[in-house]
Structures are given as structure tokens and as C-alpha cells.
């Protein structure tokens, strides 16, 4: 019988399996950032251990860094005002120095969100097992790699053993077929999938995305889709390797070259599910019917199309769902049944590991060009995912488009995605955000988040409310 892509990656990395199903799998790449690593390094210190294989690791600061260009011009982390954040950042540097871990530091042009930096540098390669103390490690599955988040004690375990104690997941495939309509992006596909299966829909599964709407996506789009596999409950998202994958990887600094490239490609071409592979669960979605999406609630599954409405409480089936809806609407400051296009936004955030790659910058700039930010929009931040994205966008003049429209062009980092740094949504303010989580307080205590694509966020910046980008010209 044929094997799924996940089966192949699992078999390739299985060191040892026990009768009770617990297994030891080998980890090829371990990505490290400042928030979840300090106790792990301390654990190594306490036990007098060293990392097993230094070249398997790459570290980068991202969560706490300042994205204010003026503060970033200052020496080291001195632009980070909050002491606990600064200490966490400084600790990453000293731990990497102490343990000889390769670090891309803040002053480096390649610095960025760990899930943007990894693929850019070729630190992410097809066929790898990739872990990081961060749930959005699922992003890297776009390369036909087995990638998922781990906890701090597992960070320590991987550093010390180059392995992970784990159990095999089940196989789930979602096929998205059909031509997607203009104005619809990978983000809309991701949100539509989550709206359909719910935030626990893929719990316990490795989630493979397939179908013509997926294979027609660029690598940037595929990363956006796999990034949000975790919001659908799956620790790992997966997409098979094809020529789009290989073209992206070719020539990346940490990618193989010459003879090694040839043999790597020969192997990578086998990284897709066999035609006769069996999945534990399968779902087909007509991608051509998907419209631009916008979340209205406090969970990514509380989502509808931009032409849609906030649901009615009376339409909810159970008491629990009625209560959940009531609570979400109270927090979000919305009325049941209202049209999403009538919802006014105060802030716009274009950034995060979901949507801060060059293509996202282009998509947003394309909508913004020739327009101004609506006066009612108090702040509109554009935060490139890495120094390289920033440089590329500037070379294309995208920064000028944003600045001319009255938006802020920032330095790379996680920024307002989780508000660990100074970029926050103020209490009661409403933000159109290209990030991945709309939980209460995620972007700042009392802040109200609506998840959208970069094009939708850009359109909201111009009109001050949710707007289908494809209808912008006719307004």
C-alpha cells in the first residue's frame, strides 16, 4: 500500500519505536527564539550537558524586539524599553555564545520572524524534521518537511539528544480544487478551512493540503496556509514537493549545491503522498466558491466572507454556543446580524509569520497604491517579516507607497501579532490584522482583532471598514 507524505517523513526519521507506540524521531533542524529557550539552556547547564549537534540549530530574536526604526538604530537591545523583554533578548545572545549555537542577531540584515527567516535562509529544506518552541512551526510544512512546535522541556530534550520522544499522528488530507477568484489569497483559504472544520477539526492529525488551488500557490502562499494548520488543531501542516518548491529552495544560502543539490532533488521529488495512500480522514473543498474572509469573533473559526454577516444568537443550536456567541460579541463590540462591511476599524496591522513575506507586502501595496489611509484609521503598521523582506520591499519602492498613504513602515519582528513588544492594540480598539490569532487580549488587553489577508487589511486601511479588495476600484 502507498504511503502518505507524513508516513514517508516519519519512516525516514524513526530512530526507535516501543511497543506502547512511543517513538524516538531524529530532528534535522531546531529553530530557536528568545521566549521559549532560556529555561532549556539553563537545564543543560544544570545537568552539565552540551547540545548534541550544533549545526542543527539556528537562533534568532523576534518576539520581543522593537519594530520602531529609531529604536532599532540604537546599539544592541538598548531600544527595548521593557526590562523583562530586554533581559530575555540578551539571554538569547549569551546562551548562544555559551553553547556555540549559530545566531542571527538583531543587527543582522537576515534577522526576522523565525518562520520567515528559516525558509529564506534555506535553513528549512524539504524532507527535514523541523521543530521550534513555537506552535507556528507548522509553517515549514509547506516545503514537504515534518515541522511542528514543541514545549520548553522538549527544546532542552532536542538540544541534548537531537531527538524527540513522540507518538505518530493520524493522516488528514484537505483537497482544495478549482480556480480561486481574484482578491482571494492563501489566507482566505486557510480561514475558510478553519471556518469549515473548526479549531479542533484536525487535532491529532498531520494535515496535508492538496488540490489544484494549493499547487497553484506560490511558496509564500503555501507557507501562509500551513502556518494556520495549527489554528485548525493540527500540529503539523504539509504540502508535497513540486517544481515550485525546488525553485524556491534553489540557491538559498543554507541549501545544498552542486552534486549534493542533484541528489537532494532526486530524493525530494519523492516527497508527496502516493496515489494509493490512505488517509484516516479526507475532505474536499471547492476553492472557487471561497470569498475573501474576515473573522468576527474571538476564535479563528468565528469567520465569514466579507459579504457575510455576524451570526444571530437565535440560530445557534445549543446553549453553550449561544453563550459563546454572546460573549464573543460583547468582547468584540458587535451586534448580531450586522454586515461585516459596516464594521469600522481603528487600526491596521500588516505583518506576522502568517503574512509578512514579500508577496504579502506586494499584495498590500498593490491595493494601497494611489490611495490614502482613511482619517478614521488611527494607526496602520506595516511590519516586514525579516530584514531581507524589508530590503526587497524598499528596492521595489513599496515602503514609499505605504508611507505616502499615511501608514508606518517598521523594522522586522513579531510586533502586534502578540504584543510582547511595545506594539499593542489599545483596549476597545478594533484592528484589521493579517496575523493568525484573534483570542481575547492577543494583540493587547481589551484589543479587538479581525483576521484578514494583506489585501483585505490594505482595503480596510483605505476605507476604514471591511471591504472586498476587488470592489475597491468601483467605490
Amino acid at each position, binding site marked *: 500500500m502507498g504511503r502518505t507524505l507524513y508516513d514517508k517523513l516519519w519512516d525516514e526519521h524513526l530512530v526507535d519505536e516501543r511497543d506502547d507506540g512511543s517513538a524516538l524521531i531524529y530532528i534535522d533542524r531546531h529553530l530557536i527564539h528568545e521566549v521559549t529557550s532560556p529555561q532549556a539552556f539553563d537545564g543543560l547547564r544544570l*545537568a552539565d550537558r552540551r547540545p548534541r*549537534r550544533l*549545526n542543527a540549530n539556528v537562533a534568532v530574536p523576534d518576539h520581543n524586539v522593537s519594530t520602531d526604526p529609531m529604536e532599532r538604530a540604537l546599539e544592541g537591545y538598548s531600544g527595548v524599553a521593557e526590562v*523583562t523583554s530586554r533581559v530575555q533578548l540578551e539571554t538569547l545572545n549569551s546562551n548562544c555564545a555559551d553553547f556555540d549555537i*549559530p545566531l542571527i542577531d538583531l543587527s543582522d540584515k537576515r534577522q526576522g520572524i523565525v518562520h520567515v527567516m528559516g525558509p529564506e535562509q534555506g535553513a528549512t529544506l524539504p524532507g*527535514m524534521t523541523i521543530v521550534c518552541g513555537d506552535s507556528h512551526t507548522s509553517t515549514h510544512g509547506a516545503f514537504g518537511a515534518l515541522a511542528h512546535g514543541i514545549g520548553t522541556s522538549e527544546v532542552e*530534550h532536542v538540544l*541534548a539528544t*537531537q531527538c524527540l520522544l513522540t507518538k505518530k499522528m493520524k493522516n488528514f488530507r484537505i483537497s482544495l480544487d478549482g480556480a480561486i477568484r481574484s482578491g482571494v489569497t492563501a489566507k482566505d483559504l486557510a480561514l475558510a478551512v478553519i471556518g469549515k472544520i473548526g479549531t479542533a477539526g484536525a487535532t491529532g492529525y498531520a494535515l496535508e493540503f492538496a488540490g489544484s488551488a494549493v499547487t497553484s500557490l506560490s511558496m509564500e502562499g503555501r507557507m501562509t496556509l500551513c502556518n494556520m494548520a495549527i489554528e485548525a488543531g493540527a500540529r503539523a501542516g504539509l504540502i508535497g514537493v513540486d517544481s515550485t518548491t525546488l525553485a524556491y529552495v534553489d540557491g538559498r544560502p543554507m541549501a545544498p549545491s552542486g552534486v549534493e543539490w542533484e541528489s537532494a532533488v532526486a530524493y525530494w521529488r519523492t516527497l508527496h503522498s502516493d496515489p494509493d495512500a490512505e488517509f484516516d480522514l479526507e475532505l474536499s473543498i471547492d476553492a472557487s466558491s471561497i470569498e475573501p474572509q474576515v473573522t468576527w469573533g474571538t476564535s479563528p473559526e468565528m469567520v465569514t466572507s466579507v459579504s457575510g454577516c455576524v451570526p444571530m444568537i437565535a440560530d445557534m443550536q445549543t446553549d453553550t454556543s449561544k453563550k459563546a456567541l454572546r460573549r464573543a460579541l460583547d468582547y468584540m463590540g458587535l451586534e448580531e446580524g450586522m454586515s461585516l462591511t459596516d464594521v469600522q476599524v481603528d487600526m491596521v496591522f500588516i505583518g506576522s509569520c502568517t503574512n509578512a513575506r514579500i508577496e504579502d507586502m506586494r499584495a498590500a501595496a498593490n491595493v494601497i497604491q494611489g490611495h490614502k489611509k482613511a482619517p478614521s484609521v488611527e494607526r496602520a503598521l506595516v511590519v516586514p517579516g525579516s530584514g531581507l523582506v524589508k530590503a526587497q520591499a524598499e528596492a521595489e519602492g513599496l515602503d514609499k507607497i505605504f508611507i505616502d498613504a499615511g501608514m508606518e513602515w517598521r523594522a522586522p519582528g513579531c510586533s502586534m501579532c502578540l504584543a510582547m513588544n511595545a506594539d499593542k492594540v489599545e483596549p476597545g480598539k478594533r484592528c484589521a490584522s493579517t496575523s493568525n490569532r484573534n483570542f481575547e487580549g492577543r494583540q493587547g488587553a481589551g484589543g479587538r482583532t479581525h483576521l484578514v489577508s494583506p489585501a483585505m487589511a490594505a482595503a480596510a486601511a483605505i476605507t476604514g471598514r471591511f471591504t472586498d479588495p476587488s470592489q475597491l476600484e468601483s467605490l
Partner: protein
Amino acid sequence: MQAFTIHDGWVVPLDRSNVDTDLIIPKQFLKSIKRTGFGPNLFDELRYIEAFDEASPDAARRLDPTFSLNKSEFSNASILLARENFGCGSSREHAVWALVEYGIRCVVAPSFADIFKNNAYKSGLLPVELDEAVINALFDQLNEGQVLSLTVNLEAEQVVLPDGSSATFSVDPFRRQCLLEGLDDIGITLQRESAISAFEAKHRQARPWLFSEIKV
């Protein structure tokens, strides 16, 4: 993790029952990014005369000379003698880290809170449950001004008391094995070192590009 086989050490008494984890390490010290650095704040409220002030964390504070850990005769102690239900309250592993960092290898008490006990094993701190009568006798001797040492033998699950007699205790067999061999989860995985190395060698040969040097 440090292995625990036989430990010979001086005893320091903490004569109160239901010592909770907040007393062991107060919550204001949990903001730390570290698993180390808790030792100086072990039993912080009992140990210092001035309360900890978050606004001036480095301010000098006087040790309370009446607290047992501060007494010179107990300054080298590595065994903490306590009353029943030691380590109750929150699940914070910081409590164990603080004790270990201070230099405690073993807590002897009539009973322990479950989570604390579990946490202790993970850091090589041995919780020893002895009969209440034995504990009472030890407290009595210490209160009379004697200085005591104990020999704790995990292999034999026995404590040799100052008078040469011994008392028995028991530890879950799996945990006992882990402690004797100094194994935590990582240690257990490292026992499969030959399997890991064999896999790694094969993997390196098949996919050499995964093993190239990273130049940053």
C-alpha cells in the same frame, strides 16, 4: 540530572507542617526566565528581616538569625527535616529548583504533597518519607542542641540514624531507577545513544546536505 545513590549529610530542621510552595519560593520570583537563580530566595519570607521589594530588588537585606537555615551550626546542611504535607500548594517546579540550588539533596518528612514529590524526582531531589515517630525523635534531638548527620541509602531504601539504627522508606521503582542512574527524560533518551548514533551515521550518509556546517 545528578544521580542519587547514597547521601551523607548534615540536617537542618524546619519545624512546621504544611509548608507550601509559596513559602518555599514566593510568587514574585517566578517572573524569571531562568531555572537557576532561585537559591537566594528559598524561604525568602522566613529568611530575611526586610521583605523583598520589587522596586529595588538588589537592596541589601538582613538575614533573620532566628531562622534555622541562617544558624551557623546548620550552614553546611544538605538534608531538610520537615513536618507532614511538605510542598503543598501550587505546582511550581521552581520550589524544587530553589531547594536544589541552595544545596538540599534530600527532604525528610512524614509526608509530601504529590506534585512536589513528582517535581522533586525530576531534579534529583530525594523526598524521604519516614515514620512520624522517627521524625519526632530527630526533631527532639535537634531541639536539644545536637547537630545531626544522616546517611540516606536509596539503593537499600534505608536511612542510617545518628544512633546507628536504621529506618526504611520506599520509592516508586521506576523513579528509583531514574534517580540511581541520574536519569531524567533526557537521560532515558540518552540511554538509547547507540541507536541514535547508528541512525545519525546512516542518515548522514544518505542525506549529507543535512549535516553541512552553518555559517552565520
